[in-house]
């Protein structure tokens, strides 16, 4: 009797299990409407700077996922590279980076504007003409007043705290604490932004700025209809002008983008947008390893973060030729570096700083980030992908990859510290790679008598309360500050201004300039900002880079790279110097 019952239970359980498995077959297949094999032959780096599996075929659902929610989907309240890449699908700023492979993708081209900005008054006034025929998703025509409102609302950092503050810093006479929600008529920005007619917008700046087209490509210049602005909740449904509009939005799960039938490709001749998928789904809060597994299994199309696979997946990919053929080692506009804080003696002496540069093990620095896959040894600040950048190697980092002890000792003598000195090095507690950097520097600098004591601090407050707060850094003798910096955009200003201009250092903390104070550099930056000739301007930014290196104000570590995985489900996929990940305005799905 007892065995009969057991047999019955077992049989029922098996039947249920089998039915679930049987049901599982179709459920487990990719959700994309157009999954299928790629027609191009997969090979390593096939989508780095060139188009892999080019396609104009529309259709399917592009499935993207990310480990956590980024700051905001509101174009006026976001500061993430992935977000600036993605928003081009649902809104159109005045200018945008062209969706083409390689270096061409780092040039701002007209988007909502019909031409680049026209400077006047020594680059303190910039005028843009808007294209005709551009509409919001509800069919209302876009006017210059919508652009003015969009920029004005982004100035309110109490309601929309996340975006960059370039417009706050550069627009003429913007009242402190300005908020469009208290100034419905926009009287407070009357001097800063003019809209003489529905197709013209004029920006007035408080100082010359020759690269204003880069400001004009910020997502915050994408038009927002004042009547539809819901403040902090606008991110739940930004009003679309691009080829897609918001479908569903759930702050816990993610959102969908569906086609915007009011988008007219005829009004969009320059941006290179392809809008190939019929739908784009974005899932939040998916475990990082799970994302990688799904990419490898073809159950997911894109890791939205675009910074590369997890370390364990990287090892798996590099060990398997078939998987490696689906990988791209994409250069990022990112420098992993260590700032030498000149406020902490004896690093106020240039020779002591030079001793650190000579003694450092550059190959060790590279190893800390996973070897050559993690990036190339940096010899100066600006990564080669930055428009106009020049690489130079004044200290011989590439010839003496493990450091030059003799030169380091010589510099220590000139510094008056022939036996070396003791100082602290700081890094972010939860960043294993930065910890490895601190350890490799500890070992290599010890060879010349420079003894480093590690002082890690939490990532969340690293720049706000610790390493980025000048009085704290000085009081705690944080002489070497390990950090990582990615450009806001790929030109000299976008890369350098926030990390080497001493005037951006605030006593209250939150600084990304962690202690570089060189008056000549500040002067060069002013010159570059008012130089309208692009070639001459780029040369000045190279001079800034050279001056910082001459003063040994920082130890460049590596120019970072990320290992992205490219499933067979993708078509028209490439990275460029504008996005430094797959371009989300161009990407499509391989059709059967």
């Amino acid at each position, binding site marked *: 009797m007892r065995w009969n019952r057991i047999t019955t239970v077992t049989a029922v359980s098996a039947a249920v299990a089998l039915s679930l498995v049987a049901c599982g077959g179709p459920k487990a297949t990719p959700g994309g409407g157009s999954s299928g094999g790629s027609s191009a032959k997969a090979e390593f780096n096939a989508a780095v700077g060139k188009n892999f599996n080019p396609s104009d075929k529309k259709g399917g659902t592009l499935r993207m*996922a990310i480990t956590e929610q980024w700051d905001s989907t509101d174009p006026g309240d976001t500061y993430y590279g992935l977000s600036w890449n993605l928003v081009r699908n649902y809104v159109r700023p005045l200018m945008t980076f062209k969706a083409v492979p390689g270096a061409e993708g780092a040039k701002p081209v007209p988007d909502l504007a019909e031409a680049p900005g026209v400077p006047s008054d020594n680059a303190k006034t910039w005028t843009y003409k808007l294209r005709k025929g551009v509409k919001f998703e509800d069919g209302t025509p876009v006017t210059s007043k919508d652009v003015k409102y969009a920029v004005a609302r982004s100035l309110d950092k109490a309601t929309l*705290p996340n975006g960059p503050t370039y417009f706050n810093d550069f627009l003429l006479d913007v009242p402190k604490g300005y908020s469009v929600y208290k100034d419905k008529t926009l009287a407070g920005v009357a001097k800063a932004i003019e809209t003489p007619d529905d197709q013209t917008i004029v920006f007035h700046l408080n100082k010359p700025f020759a690269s204003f087209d880069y400001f004009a490509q910020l997502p915050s210049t994408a038009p927002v209809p004042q009547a539809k602005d819901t403040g902090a909740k606008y991110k739940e449904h930004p009003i679309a002008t691009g080829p897609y509009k918001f479908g569903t939005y759930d702050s816990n799960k993610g959102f969908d983008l569906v086609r915007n039938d009011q988008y007219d490709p005829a009004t969009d001749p320059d941006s290179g947008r392809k809008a190939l998928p019929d739908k784009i789904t974005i899932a939040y809060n998916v475990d990082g390893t799970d994302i990688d597994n*799904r990419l490898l*299994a073809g159950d997911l199309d894109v890791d939205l973060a675009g910074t590369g696979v997890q370390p364990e997946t990287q090892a798996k990919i590099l060990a398997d030729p078939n998987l490696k053929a689906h990988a791209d080692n994409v250069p990022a506009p990112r420098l992993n570096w260590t700032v030498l804080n000149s406020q902490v003696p004896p690093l106020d002496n240039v020779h002591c700083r030079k001793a650190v540069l000579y003694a450092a093990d550059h190959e060790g620095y590279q190893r800390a980030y996973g070897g050559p896959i993690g990036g190339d040894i940096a010899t100066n600040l600006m990564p080669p992908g930055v428009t106009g950048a020049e690489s130079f190697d004044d200290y011989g980092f590439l010839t003496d990859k493990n450091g030059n002890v003799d030169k380091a000792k010589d510099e220590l003598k000139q510094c008056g510290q022939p036996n070396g000195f003791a100082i602290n090095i700081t890094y972010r507690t939860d960043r294993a790679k930065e910890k490895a950097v601190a350890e490799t520097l500890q070992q290599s600098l010890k060879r010349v008598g420079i003894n480093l004591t590690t002082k890690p601090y939490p990532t969340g407050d690293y720049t706000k309360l610790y390493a980025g707060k000048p009085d704290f850094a000085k009081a705690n003798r944080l002489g070497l500050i390990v950090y990582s910096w990615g450009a806001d955009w790929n030109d000299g200003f976008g890369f350098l201004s926030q990390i080497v201009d001493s005037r951006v250092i605030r006593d*209250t903390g939150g600084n990304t300039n962690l202690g570089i104070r060189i008056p000549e550099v500040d002067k060069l930056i002013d010159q570059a900002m008012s130089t309208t000739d692009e070639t001459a301007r780029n040369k000045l930014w190279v001079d800034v880079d050279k001056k910082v290196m001459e003063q040994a104000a920082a130890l460049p570590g590596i120019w970072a790279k990320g290992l992205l995985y490219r499933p067979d489900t993708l078509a028209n996929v490439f990275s460029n110097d504008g996005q430094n990940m797959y371009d989300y305005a161009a990407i499509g799905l391989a059709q059967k």
Partner: protein
Amino acid sequence: MLAYLIRRLIGAVVLLFIVTAVTFSIFFLVPRLGGATADDLASRYVGRSVGKEQIHQTAERLGFTDPLYVQYGRFVKGLVVGTDYNYGPSTEHCPPPCFGYSFLTQQPVWPDLVSRIPVTASLAGGAAFIWLVTGVGTGVISALRRGSVLDRSMMSVALAGVSLPIFFTGLLALSIFSYGLGWTAQGGTNPMDETNPIWWAYDLILPWTTLAFLYAAAYARLTRAGMLETMNDDYVRTARAKGLTERDVVLRHGLRSALTPILTIFGLDLGLLMGGAILTETTFSLPGIGQYAVIALRANDLPKVLGVTLVAAFFIVLANLVVDLLYAVVDPRVRIS
């Protein structure tokens, strides 16, 4: 019995208020004692490169500039009568129980928690059923077949279950059954999106079994130990001497007595899991309370952390209450006392 129940309920409410006070103090009083100003706290919730004035504006908007008792009073008031929140163009009423607004996502915390509780409840409930049935069943069989190959094999599997962390077994199971064989749902699938209960179970079968594997192992070992002890007691011998069938002896006398400590642990385990099965939800990317806790902690989003803490405390208090009441059902000695 009713008076006992009322007493316990009042005690539970008082305990929850103590938890709110302690948690609130940890997040808002301790940093102040450590020298942090209102602006220091607010600086975590502003973007990059903002100035002193903007940080101060944010501190005022988030209420950090008010005295601490005012902030706590506002929080408690929100729980009881709700509160208003300025999101730019207008204000929004957050109805009670308002756990406050996320400093980062600008969303009220309570609806987020409510939307996630069914996921956690589905995970915890299903897994609890599996581990209770398999764990206790395995423990009983092992105890009755003490020293046999079956006993040793089952206890070895149980030891493996206790020893292997969920992020290992979970990822391994996902890799084999989901991405390899395609038998089960992939990570990140939300079971609450399903309208058909079979699909709901299909989405959860892997997290259930993975989580249950961990717990069943412990329950099997506990049950085995309890059964071995009770089966040697005098009253069991008496039951046998009275001529009861072996099934009645095992189930009515042996297991019933051995169940009391298991019930205590089961209540606590279930209560803890209802407050968020953090590792399981993270591994399988399930949008439950545990995943919410991780997101909140990573972002230093204090209202969210506070909300999760209170929900977790609520479920633990509730589970304890239920367990205490169930004692009387399971063990007649409790009823008599």
